[in-house]
């Protein structure tokens, strides 16, 4: 049956690895954990077990960040993973949960419409009407279930949830209990319970965390890819995936185009040129890896449907400008400055410079 499932949860997909780690684990396990903290680290970062079993790395990047994340969960603080889109926040949260509790399915998806009933508890209204408030009429949320069974509950996109609903987490995180006044009772969290939340730190229009709630989280910021090579590789892989459905065949200049787009994005995002010589202003947008991917995709679509099938600077320019210039005044100045101080004088960039110049 599982063959039909589009995507297996982490604990199923990597069941063999988890079992192997559990077998060879000799470290001390915190209560409610199925393996020791250092084994969780091995599961995330990959490595070879004593038994010779090879563990694939789940997170490629700074090991210290994963150590902070795991150490946080051994204290009774909740963990907040912060970062741009496409920095593997949800991926990390799913795998940590899978490694620690073996159940990554307790999940609250944060949206602007997430209500308090989705965080604390809801009611089965038919039963509520016929029987009045009772245990049977109570609808448990993943949070409540995690508390009862000492598991980790994941909250995705925490900052998208309205502030009042976010704050209902405060009691749960500090008192470790969830009062149910209708039944004059409360649910006490058992050992092992914790919360991993993920949030986007540069997205506009989100609800910033109240300081009371902030204080209950340890924050780990997952950074964008550290090197340009890493980022170009990520974009290339994802865009080639998109290409499988079209007739475009990537050539060498295609990788060069990716490199240029990624270079523009990285330079503006970091506020400094790749060679570190010129400082730049940064525009208001996030300029994430995910956006670079979509610029490439739309550029390819343009070239195929409206161009000569070859990817040209013209095809990318509109995407680049559309992504960078979000504010018609401020961002435009930033990008014009970038064009004149950096793009204009760079070897082999004449075509992009001209295409952008024509559009802005």
């Amino acid at each position: 049956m599982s063959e039909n499932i589009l995507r297996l949860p982490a604990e199923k997909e990597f069941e063999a690895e988890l079992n192997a780690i559990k077998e060879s684990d000799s470290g001390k396990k915190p209560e409610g954990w199925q393996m020791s903290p250092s084994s969780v680290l091995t599961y995330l970062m990959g490595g070879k077990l004593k038994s010779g079993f090879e563990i694939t790395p789940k997170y490629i990047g700074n090991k210290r960040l994963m150590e902070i994340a795991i150490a946080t969960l051994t204290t009774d603080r909740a963990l907040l993973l912060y970062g741009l889109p496409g920095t593997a926040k949800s991926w990390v949260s799913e795998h940590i949960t899978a490694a620690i509790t073996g159940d990554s399915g307790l999940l609250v998806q944060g949206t602007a419409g997430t209500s308090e009933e989705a965080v604390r508890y809801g009611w089965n209204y038919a039963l509520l009407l016929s029987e009045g408030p009772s245990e049977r009429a109570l609808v448990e949320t993943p949070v409540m279930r995690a508390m009862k069974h000492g598991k980790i509950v994941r909250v995705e996109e925490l900052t998208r949830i309205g502030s009042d609903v976010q704050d209902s987490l405060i009691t749960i995180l500090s008192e470790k209990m969830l009062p149910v006044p209708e039944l004059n009772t409360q649910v006490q969290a058992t050992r092992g319970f914790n919360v991993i939340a993920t949030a986007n730190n540069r997205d506009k229009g989100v609800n910033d965390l109240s300081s009371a709630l902030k204080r209950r989280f340890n924050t780990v910021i997952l950074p964008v890819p550290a090197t340009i090579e890493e980022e170009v590789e990520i974009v290339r892989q994802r865009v080639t995936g998109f290409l499988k459905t079209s007739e475009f065949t990537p050539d060498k200049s295609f990788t060069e185009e990716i490199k240029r787009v990624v270079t523009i994005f990285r330079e503006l995002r970091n506020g400094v040129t790749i060679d570190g010589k010129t400082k730049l202003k940064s525009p208001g947008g996030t300029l994430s890896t995910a956006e670079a991917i979509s610029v490439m995709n739309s550029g390819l679509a343009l070239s195929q449907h409206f161009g000569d099938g070859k990817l040209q600077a013209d095809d990318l320019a509109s995407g680049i400008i559309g992504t960078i210039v979000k504010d018609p005044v401020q961002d435009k100045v930033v990008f014009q400055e970038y064009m004149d101080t950096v793009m204009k004088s760079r070897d082999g960039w004449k075509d992009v410079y001209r295409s952008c110049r024509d559009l802005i």
Partner: protein
Amino acid sequence: MPVHVLGIRHHGPGSSRHVLHVLEELHPDVILVEGPPEGDTLLKWFSHANMKPPVAMLAYATDNPKNAHFYPFTEYSPEWNAIRFAQEKDIPVRFMDLPLHHALAGTGTVTETVTETVTVTVTVTDQEIEGYTIDDKDSEQVKEDPFGYLAKLTGFDDGDLWWEHQVERAETALEVFDGITEVISALREEFPDVQKIDALREAWMRKILKSTEKEGFQNIVVVCGAWHVPALTDSKKFKGDNSLLKGLPKTKIEMTWVPWTYTRMSFHTGYGAGVRSPGWYRYLWQMLDDDGTYWLSKTAAVFRENATDVSSAHIIESVKLSNALAALRNYNKPGLNEHIESTIAVMCMGDDVLMKLIWRDLIVGSVIGEIPEGTPQAPIYRDFEKSVKSLRLKLSETPKSITLDLRKETDLQKSILFHRLKILKIQWAYEAFSRGKGTFKEEWTLQWDPEMVIELIEKAIWGNTIELAANQFLIHLAGNCNSISEISSLIEDAIPTELTTGIETALQRLDDLSASSSDIPALMAAFAPLVRIKRYGNVRNTDLVMISSIVRSVFYRILPGLEYAPNGINEEEALNLTNRIREVHDAVLLLEEEEFSDDWFTTIQKVADSEQSAPMVNGICCKILYDRNQFDEEETASVFGRSLSLANPPSASAAWIEGFLMDGASILLYDDVIRNIISRWLIGLNDQIFQEIIPLLRRTVSTYSPAEKRQLALKLQQIQSGVTEPDDTRWDQKRAQLIIPFYASLLELKKQNDE
């Protein structure tokens, strides 16, 4: 006859503690410390009550103070503590390193560039000393940090961390040194290559050790860098030392004390001093038993001082996380990295920007040492005295004015010296009044104050000569500038100092700041002086290519912002911006580069076309275009008509006129069309409005020269009296002809007439 060799890590607080324990236990009858034997004369100052570390022993070649060597000590330096221990217990103590009159003589070929001279001056860890070698190839090998290698073997991130956990953090004493000896011996077997300077130094150490034994001391303790331990304990090595030490070059050296700072101790200043975190080490020295609570409380205090709220709950959680991290990494105690990480995760919401504060105030720390009165003089002071003498100046407490003619070489040198002192903030000479551009004269007033000696010696940490110190200090100041106006005034001060690298750093800083600034008028103010340097090569040695690129980048940062700069600003800002536009305009003309002027006029056109620009700015832009003949007569009339239309508020029209007419009266004198438009507009105003705007117009006219004003008044009088053009009939032909021969002779036309 036991000899105990204690291998330490310079500035390691743990080493210090272990050394003291062992000294207590062994009661040696003599202590030998790694350091130059010339320093023996300075030993008495170690226990002086007014000696407050960090301080440094400074040794320099008498004939060339740039060839110098610092030996910094902190309160937790093992050498410092060993010497103080000896003096307290009346145990003889001596330095045992290769004498500096040999060591400094060997490095006579030190390159003259400032940074490199600075790098070779500091002795902190052995790696750094080895960087002091004569042979380039040798020094390259040594730069491979041996402790970094050990760290890699044992799974630590770097050599520092390895030391901290293996040695510095261990709490038992004597065995520690045996362990170190063992490890370093193994390491040196693995890497048997010894640098020449190291071989010499170790040979000398052995020589002193031997002679000390011969003197009959029974219980000798040697305190030296761990790397040297095997060389001093292995008796096989003692052979051949004498021949090695024969015929070493010699030079005369002097030694003195200088106050030192924690910032100098750290890596951050580029001094390669070897201790990344002097503040953290001081904490380790003072608070061995702390589990991080004290450190993290201090961290919180720093945040609070800088207006960032941090609660006690934050501290509690940070301590917990630090300890959890240490447990996960199998350390017995959290170290600096764990504390930094927990601070970021708990107190800073994952963002490490605020950690800069902690690095500056806590991990490095801002401690400055003090030296007692009566210590020998520092070379920077000597250099100053030398310059003063050679320029035939006198130090006097009564003010004295002098006038310099910069075309004369000595006067120019004086001016350079004064400007450098000004950069160093030593107010011996100050400019009596500001001079006009392009003059060769400078007026200075000299007044000496004995306190300036201290100020000068304080600057010794920046360099051993006025030039070096001013240059380093300029680099430091440039790094601290945070606004365009600050850095441009610094650059203006710096240009007459002829401090090449300092000026380059300041220019680079200007470039950096201009990137992040949106203060267009400030950027524009910085532009004109830069252009002058570029055009006239004002700074003799400054790299013109670099200036060109900065001129370019500043210019292209001005342009896009200038389009929007005149929108929604008040009158004062408009006046400022107008003046800036004139300056930049002049500078652009001065540059005579087509690319710049084309882009400049395009932008000016945009501002002139914009409905939203402040009227005065709009006026100056129209004037610039008018001067460039971009407007023909008809268009000028239409621009004027539009700007002075009665539909505009009169004050706006007046401001516009001010912008347009700011430069001179010639338009009013010679362009009838424009003058008529203005006249008509003025006459059309009612009394009340006229009174309101008359001060604005008055301000415009007041900038004209008396001659222009007179001409203008005459012209207007003529118009009013109905005389539009001077009439030919009023000429007295005869009288006029009389002056023709005179003009002809003036123009030397006579001959031609004769012919």
